[in-house]
């Protein structure tokens, strides 16, 4: 029973990670490409991590909670890096499928305190 659950989770995880990478390769401009890795891959990794937590909780003594931490850090860092990539792309005026907004680069943005 556990094995079936684990295989399903791992398969789903692999599928979502693959689709995320596919998006990275297939989509047409930088900004749309950002979407694949930030979302589909996040859920894919989530599935793999749940599978890992279940496996180690069943097969070893005690409940394995490291995966909670991994997903927590993942959910904190993935959007931040996506945001920075998009910001850098706007700054460099990368080619886009749609009109890009004019970034107000005349005055440098004040240092933000990223609290996470």
């Amino acid at each position, binding site marked *: 029973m556990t094995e079936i659950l684990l295989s399903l989770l791992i398969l789903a995880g692999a599928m979502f990670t693959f689709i995320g990478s596919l998006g990275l390769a297939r989509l047409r401009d930088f900004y749309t490409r950002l979407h694949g890795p*930030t979302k589909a891959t*996040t859920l894919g990794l989530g599935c793999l991590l749940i599978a890992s937590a279940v496996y180690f909780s069943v097969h070893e003594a005690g409940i394995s909670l490291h995966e909670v931490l991994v997903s927590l850090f993942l*959910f904190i860092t993935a959007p931040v890096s996506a945001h920075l990539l998009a910001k850098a792309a706007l700054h460099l005026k990368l080619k886009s499928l749609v009109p890009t907004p004019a970034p107000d680069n005349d005055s440098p*943005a004040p240092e*933000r305190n990223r609290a996470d």
Partner: protein
Amino acid sequence: MRRLLPHPLLSLTLALLWLLLVNQLSAGHVVLGGLLGWLIPFATSAFWLEPVRIRHPLTLLHYLGILILDIVHGSFHVAYLILRGPARLRPVFVEVPLALETPLAISLLANTISLTPGTVSALLSGDRRTLIVHALDTDDGDALVRKIKQRYEAPLKKIFEEGNDRC
């Protein structure tokens, strides 16, 4: 009290993180976690200009629930869009005018937007008044902005900024 323990929430979070990291609950680790949770806020006090206050813990829980559902839903949606092929995407940049003021709430909103269906936050304007968001596939940018404001910004405002007297 405030001088001794400047950020009680941060301390508690750090102590819990430590316990999760060592993955065992023994008295020694509780003490060590507590000690780290007490010391680290002092070392990083430059990053925490104002103490974080959570006004409505239940709203926060509700918000996290919505967020998790939306992440799952968003992943399926984006997976579908990628598989359907790039030719039929209608990407667009929208500007979300922000009602939030504290840096923490704004960064949480930006993170939320990046994690939820088809949107990535791309740029915060220099005066922190507008957030530029890239949507993967939408036919009505205004509706998207309204949705972001209602679904995510309003609860964040309620949780972190209600009753703030500074402007």
